[in-house]
């Protein structure tokens, strides 16, 4: 029996471990990334530089901070503050709705992961504008909810063209982006980790607070970014469900470009990007190499 030990200990270590990343054994693959690098430089990096250029110059190609300062205009400032408020509220609501849902789905051991993922993203196959328009049908004065309420002689619900309707639209459109990252992190938690916590004396609440919640944090952070950023920058949802009176920062920027005021629009976009960069920085701190959070 000792012989077996000797044989096993001299088994060579697999060379792949030396390279860190699995290199597939292909010696030189760098050139495969050249088209991608060219594409990304041409259509991601340079466009961002162009937006920076437009944001910092006037029509006469003079350097200026006026475009960025235009955020201080009371109307623009109010639209930014409103966008921040609404996207914050809808992110919180999404989180509160999605976390229990992800936990239930994780527990249910339904047929397969892909089935659950499918059910959550299937609605996206109906055009997103149309789905949002359908909410008009549900919410408007003569809409479905009010027809039902009227039938039971209950007071009418008037939330169409209010900030509440916009929040509802945001929650509706971006909820899947909160559910999926959290679900994907939860299913990866080894059941024995939870058993170990129970084994060491933790009750279910302690297990949740000390083990499950901290371990699912990358998914939560990823979900928050994926709901907050598109909510903050939307102009479509506010346009369809908010009527013409409610203006978010996204609407302001879109309007500037529609009337040809590119420099001001770019300046405001740069302000918006500061918020996006902050949330991206938070995300990358928690989610190294995109392992925890990707939804797909």
């Amino acid at each position, binding site marked *: 029996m000792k012989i077996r030990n000797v044989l096993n200990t001299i088994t060579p270590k697999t060379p792949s471990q030396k390279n860190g990343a699995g290199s597939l054994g292909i010696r030189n693959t760098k050139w495969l990334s050249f088209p991608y690098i060219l594409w990304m430089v041409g259509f991601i990096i340079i466009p961002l530089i162009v937006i920076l250029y437009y944001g910092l110059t006037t029509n006469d190609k003079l350097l200026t901070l006026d475009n960025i300062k235009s955020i201080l205009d009371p109307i623009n400032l109010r639209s930014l503050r409103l966008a921040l408020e609404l996207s914050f509220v809808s992110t919180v609501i999404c989180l509160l709705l999605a976390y229990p849902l992800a936990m239930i789905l994780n527990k249910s051991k339904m047929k397969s992961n892909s089935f659950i993922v499918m059910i959550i993203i299937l609605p996206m196959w109906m055009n997103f504008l149309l789905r949002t328009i359908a909410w008009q049908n549900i919410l408007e004065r003569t809409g479905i909810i009010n027809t039902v309420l009227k039938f039971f002689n209950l007071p009418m619900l008037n939330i169409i063209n209010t900030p509440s309707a916009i929040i509802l639209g945001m929650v509706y459109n971006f909820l899947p982006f909160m559910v999926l990252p959290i679900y994907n992190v939860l299913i990866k938690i080894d059941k024995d980790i939870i058993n*170990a916590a129970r084994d060491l004396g*933790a009750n279910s609440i302690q297990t949740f607070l*000390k083990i499950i919640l901290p371990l699912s944090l990358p998914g939560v952070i990823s979900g928050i970014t994926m709901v907050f950023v598109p909510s903050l920058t939307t102009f479509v949802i506010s346009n369809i469900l908010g009527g013409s009176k409610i203006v978010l920062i996204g609407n302001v920027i879109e309007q500037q470009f529609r009337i040809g005021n590119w420099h001001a629009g770019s300046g405001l976009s740069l302000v918006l990007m500061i918020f996006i960069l902050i949330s991206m920085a938070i995300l990358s701190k928690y989610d190294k190499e995109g392992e925890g959070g990707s939804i797909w």
Partner: protein
Amino acid sequence: MTDNKLINLVNISKSYGDNIVLDELNLYIRENEFLTLLGPSGCGKTTTLRIIGGFENPDQGQVIFEGKDITRTAPNERQLNTVFQKYALFNHLTIAENIAFGLKIKKKSKAYIDDKIKYALKLVNLDGFENRMPNSLSGGQQQRIAIARAIVNEPKVLLLDEPLGALDLKLRQDMQYELIRLKNELGITFIYVTHDQEEALTMSDTIVVMNQGYIQQIGTPEDIYNEPQNAFVADFIGESNIIPSIMIEDKLVNILGTNFACVDTGFGRNKPVDVVIRPEDIDLVKPEEGTIKGVVTSLLFKGVHYEMEVHAHGHDWLVHSTDLSPVGSEVGISVDPYDIQIMNKPESEDEEAVELEI
């Protein structure tokens, strides 16, 4: 080890859908015992352990701990701790926080906890690892931390679910000695699950061999190895020759047409039986001196011994010997009477799974 029954499993059954994992299992574990549940994968050993730990509910039966029924008690209410297969360390916590986890929940004082962490790390030879993260440790080190995390809670019983399965062989052997040392220092009961017979033979006071949800045999390592009660145990524990034979009368067995003297009695006359002979118990002698004659058909050098196959009377006999007989040579086979182990032939499939009275 005392005779005090600490845990008693009574009539435990468990099935998943149509798949019966445990069928009316009865087993007791004594205080201070090192008991090993041994068997191939799917034999029900891990399920048994998880039922004791409280991670599975049996469909039927009771788990009695110190005379109290704990069948429905939640895992966090049980006075036992588990070392999980893949360690199940909390990767978001430091080593010290991992070890302190159970103690903090019990609201122990900080001084007490710090003391315990130091003590436990010393016990597993990892002093100074307090502030490392689990991910930065090797498999063997993580294993020790998992043990440390369990034992600081001073459980009466430590459950170990194939704890060495993920380690390489050299490390596994070192850890076997560590575990025996730990058990002696702590003086608590170990219930150990493994599919590795060598591990079981090395460490246990008692081995429970399981297959397909049934206990096949319970005994000391020596009992199990030297006197397997059925073909499954004989085959699973070590290598052996299992040969269908006829018990002529007490102390005489006919193996492949030739009578051999043996020491077993009480099997009746002219009864079909199975004979187990360990390869190292077969002596190769000069052809005329053996009970039967055969020809060596293969030869392998295995370091401490040669492994040979001898074709004799239509059977390939596996032989371990330090003396070499070249391939093609004619040899005699001789077996001492007390090295022949007689087993009842199972009459049907069902009987193969012997239910043992305990």
